[in-house]
């Protein structure tokens, strides 16, 4: 037995140590690493009926990736314009949602973290309660509001802002509002956690030296809160790019989200390898984007999830 294993079992006891090691291995290898590798492997295979899997036709192929770029073989267009457009629009919209969320949440996080008093507890509670409620129901609530005969249209038409109800859903406004709504907490918490540990004296000192509020935030608070901000942005971006419920419920009929394409490949077309290939593309692109941003802002992986 290698020395570190021996030390490990000395430290934790044999029974307890084995259970712990078993659980960790099951989680990391059985639930995280192998399924992802398996999906990657699957995305390079042709779509075959079950009896032929593992048979002579089961050869590695780039077909599924080619499909995303060039569309079906012999198709009329040289590029798969529809899917590619959905793909890049999903990413851009996710970036947009992330930025919207950051701007919305930063002041709240700062206020909650740097203010004392009982009302902060109440506010925090009010912040958390919506997140104890089902994701679908949150989207449903927004649909009631943004629907053509919804509250918002009633109010706007009543006030005379619009003559006829505005179609928030078809214009994707409901979708962006819904995605923003869904991940507010994930943006606020990391930023809040970091700002809470910021010594209030630093802000006072900056004020004392005559710095204006925007300058204090720009030079003192934001640099300090950078790990929290990037952690929140990473999570919101990944989750909005990977969202499925909100686009299905709040998305207009013409505006698909990339995850919806994956869903269709799996459930409507029963083309698992194709769906897996799309999933791999989504995952890899998101990870590369996040890593690039983390490098740009000089943040470590270890800061994520604090």
């Amino acid at each position: 037995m290698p020395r570190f294993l021996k030390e490990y079992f000395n430290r934790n006891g044999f029974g307890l140590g084995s259970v712990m090691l078993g659980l960790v291995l099951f989680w990391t290898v059985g639930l995280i690493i192998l399924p992802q590798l398996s999906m990657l492997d699957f995305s390079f295979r042709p779509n075959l009926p079950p009896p032929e899997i593992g048979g002579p036709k089961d050869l590695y192929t780039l077909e599924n990736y080619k499909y995303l770029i060039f569309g079906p073989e012999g198709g009329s267009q040289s590029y798969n314009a529809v899917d590619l457009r959905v793909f890049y629009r999903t990413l851009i919209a996710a970036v947009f949602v992330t930025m919207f969320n950051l701007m919305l949440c930063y002041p709240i996080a700062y206020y909650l973290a740097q203010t004392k008093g009982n009302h902060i507890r109440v506010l925090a509670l009010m912040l958390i309660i919506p997140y104890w409620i089902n994701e679908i129901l949150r989207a449903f609530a927004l649909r009631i509001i943004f629907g053509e005969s919804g509250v918002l249209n009633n109010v706007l038409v009543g006030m005379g802002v619009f003559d006829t109800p505005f179609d928030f859903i078809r214009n994707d406004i409901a979708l962006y509002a819904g995605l923003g709504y869904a991940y507010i907490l994930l943006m606020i918490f990391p930023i809040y956690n970091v700002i809470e540990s910021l010594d209030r004296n630093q802000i006072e000192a900056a004020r004392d030296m005559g710095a204006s509020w925007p300058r204090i935030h720009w030079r003192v608070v934001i640099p300090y809160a950078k790990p929290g901000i990037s952690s929140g942005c990473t999570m919101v971006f990944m989750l909005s790019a990977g969202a499925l419920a909100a686009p299905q419920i709040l998305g207009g009929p013409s505006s698909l989200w990339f995850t919806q394409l994956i869903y269709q490949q799996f459930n409507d077309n029963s083309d698992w390898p194709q769906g897996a290939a799309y999933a791999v593309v989504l995952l890899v692109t998101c990870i590369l984007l996040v890593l690039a941003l983390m490098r740009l802002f000089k943040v470590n992986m270890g800061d994520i999830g604090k």
Partner: protein
Amino acid sequence: MKNFSLMRIGIWVYLALFFSYLLGPLVIMSVTAFNSPGFPRAAPWECLTFEWFSALFQDERILNGIKNSILVGAGTVTLSVAMGLAGALMLTQIWPKLRATYYTIIIAPILIPGVVIGISTLVFWDRVNRLFGLEADSFLSNGLFLTVIGQSTFIASYCMLVLVARLQRYDNGLTEAALDLGATHAQAFRKVLLPFMRPAIASAAVLAFLASFENYNTTTFTFGEYPTLTIELAQKVRYGITPAISALAFIIVVLTVFAALANEAGIRRKELVAAARKSATVEELESGKLRLPGFLSSNAAAVILVVVAMMTIAVVGTAAVYSPQQCIADVREQKRLETDLKVQELLQRRAEQAARRDAEQAEQSGQEPTTEDTTPKASNNSGFGNVFDPGALQDDGTDDPEEEPATPGNNSGFGNVFDPNALQSD
């Protein structure tokens, strides 16, 4: 300072806007659960009704979904708290060189899109299933198993984060002290570490259950023959919405508020007890006669909790005896009158048009009339209120595609009659 108070007002306005964005949708959704129209809306208010609640409780698929959600939740909580705790403990003692890699691996599931986790779980266990030569309906491809496994993959990461935060404040000397006093590793774990971790384990379990309960992205690929509540809701919401869903949402909101208040009250009470213990004398502690503060004394959360509980009882009591039939009948009658009026007007207009057309046709035969499709739009301004607004038309239209779209007043007026829920509540 004028500047300062201006900023203050700014902050409060911002807070108000922010929280209305956050809570407004929930409030409006809750209101629609008590309004009688078949399409969930808060305005115009028609009749106070509880029928959507009874409709909800008679919906087999929803009830089955709740049952499945609880099954999946129980499995996920157990598995992910166990894995999260093991993962957190491992993080505190792993070889420093491996630490960063290990942390990246166990934190990654939070960042991997849920859709991807669902797919990879499905694909991987399908392969394992084939590897073992099992049938397509074996337990490895069972929806319950797959959903628990899929959800636990990333929920365990959340649990790990919660647990590691508490574990960082744990003095490993305590475990050593227990061992030194003769405890086995298992005893030290059970009697010292576990009690210390209990609050964090409880938080992690609640978090895990909520995350499991509301998960859609992963579950939608793995649920198989075990559709959870969220899956059922999503399917309902995608193919037409009813206030019964608002009713369910309202129940969940109320339960959530209850849980939050109970939690707050519990925390406050613990503080009070700790304060009382601190000021207690040795004799009081010894005799066990320490007078602990009452549950409601100086505990705002507890007071609100009791008030909300009483209000809930009152509402449920009202619901049991209240009957909206008269109101619904009145509204129906009024709508019928309006519809009749409308129909008559339409008929009249059509007659006029027909007459005009006849006249026009007589003058210039072969020219197609274009006036017809402007008629419904014109009716919009005709002072009949929202009954005729296009939204109502469209939504009811999707509910009952067989109905003729050309007779607009019909839908809302008779919509309730055709609604199966309405029949059931009779």
